[in-house]
């Protein structure tokens, strides 16, 4: 995606968002005591945001892109490490209560470390070993540190 297309697109998203805020302000209950009411400020912000979003889109249209052909071929390549990292994070929130902090964080750590290292890094046995040790030691360490040291009780899940 070219820079100007990105700018146009994001401008439009902001415009839609500002309309959404304005529209949603109608469902706020109002009082008589406060003449301006709780809907005044959101509406004001929505209007300013809308104006800025229009400026953003218009300037993106008037500006000419210098590098049109740059990295065109990359557009449709799916970025797996990114998508898997996001999926990993969402799955983490979803299962935390059931599975518990220690087990789930161990899984998370190892997968995330794997997703960050350049492909083939784990051929280096030392690196693999450090990653495994870190994934095993850190979650349990954190759990007990907060449990005994700070009285913060993280979800125990299947180990609890």
């Amino acid at each position, binding site marked *: 995606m070219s*820079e100007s297309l990105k700018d146009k697109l994001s401008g439009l998203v902001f415009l839609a968002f500002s309309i959404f805020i304005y529209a949603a302000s109608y469902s706020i209950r109002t009082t008589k*005591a406060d003449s301006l009411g709780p809907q005044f400020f959101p509406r004001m912000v929505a209007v300013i945001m809308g104006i800025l979003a229009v400026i953003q889109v218009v300037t993106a249209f008037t500006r000419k892109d210098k590098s049109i052909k740059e990295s065109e071929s990359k557009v449709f390549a799916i970025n797996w490490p990114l998508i898997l990292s996001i999926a990993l994070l969402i799955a983490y929130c979803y299962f935390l209560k059931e599975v518990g902090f220690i087990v789930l964080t161990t899984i998370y750590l190892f997968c995330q470390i794997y997703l960050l290292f350049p492909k083939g890094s784990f051929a280096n046995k030392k690196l693999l070993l450090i990653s495994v040790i870190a994934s095993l030691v850190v979650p349990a360490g954190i759990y007990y540190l907060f449990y005994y040291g700070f009285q913060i009780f993280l979800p125990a899940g299947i180990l609890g």
Partner: protein
Amino acid sequence: MLLLEGFKNVLSQPVTLLLILIGDVAGLIFGAIPGLSAFTALAIMLPLTFAMQPVMGISFLMSVYVGGVSGGFISAILLGIPGTPSSIATCFDGHELAKRGEAYRAMGVALLFSFIGGIFSAVIMSTLAPLIGQVALRFSPYEYTTVILLALTTVSALAEGSMVKGLLSCLLGVSLSFVGIDRLSAYTRYTFGYSSLRSGFAIVPLLIGLFAVSQVLTNASKRNSTTIEEAEHQIVAQKKMRGFGISIKEFFSALKTSIPASIIGLVVGILPGIGGNIANLMAYTFAKKTSKTPEEFGHGTIHGIVAPESANNASVGGALIILLTLGIPGDNATSMIMAGFQIHGIAPGPLLFSSGNTLVYAIFAAFIIANIIMLVSAYFGLPLFSKILSLRTEILLPIVIAFCFVGSFSSNNRVFEIGVMVAFGILGFIMKRYKYPLAPMVVGFILAPMLEENLRRSLMRSKGSFEPFVTSPIAVTFLVITVAVLLFTVYSEFKKKD
């Protein structure tokens, strides 16, 4: 005298000193590792302070901040990669010296002048902040509204990228603050029927998500384009040093570079939104321009280290002045400090200077002590810190996230907050992709309730008229500066295009 009280307050419990030492060392380590910063250190350490007493907790966070800002020079000098954005300029000459095998000398100088910059700003802070606090105490809603407006405008306009994007990001942050209960009327807004949203978004998961989680996603997205060789960096063998590596004569000549640099750092730090990142580059440029031997800059002169390192540490004091007196955080790290204050039941702002007087001076004292301990611990720890650089970010960053899970969870003791953190992490990643700066969003989110309250109070008082904003001399001054900042930014953006 009140400052002495503050020292007594901090020193009365020796544990606090130990905490400051731990905080400094932790901060230095985080600052030294490229990709991690004072902010990441604060994000990890924040949940640790939940169980501490206010003075201890705040002193600890303060020392993490001081250490985090200072640590950047270690990797800047050894690797030529700034450990934090506030040590970019330190690379220019610092790494040149390291290539000659004089890394320890360079680090000694960087450390010494980080300390001097920090102490300078600490002294100015403890004298200036109470005065500004007194003035701010007399602010009516009109003045308060305009000063917040000014802060939001500067953060947005001076952030990286276009001004419109900065402002949009800021307004997005402002609108996120609508969710939850309206402070003035006690009605809920924008919760869409979800009871979990009734208390609004908590600041800690929002901050951690936007900055730490988005960092992991950014690094993951670059995985396919980096090779194993690129990911590994080399360290050159270095000469040992004695003392700080400079003679007394050199020290005094360096001091002449350090003083203007510290002033630049302090002033830039006071302005919200720019802080250490810009301060170190500005101070470097200034030192080069005013130097008698500008040709030495970039080829390994100690003055090229003295200027940026004095400036970035001095900017910390500047940022704290505004945070403490007006309750306005300038960047992500100070936002985190502010979150820490709130957790310990302290509301930064002018009232801090009238209500909790002893506490404010304890904060000043902690800041000064943190700087002193930083100097000592870093001096003895330098060889160790240099070793830490061989730790891999790929392993450390997920560990940071593991701590962030805890930080978010414990901010309200529910899993929902981790969801909030992840959601904002994804949002932050997308915004970075689309070149929207994140700092304005956070500052917008934090200041929005204050802005709304003051704006509505003002208009209630004036029965809907905007006139008092123009008739109050202080308010009108802030408005004029706000407009000037906007015009100046538009002008310089147009100039750049041509």
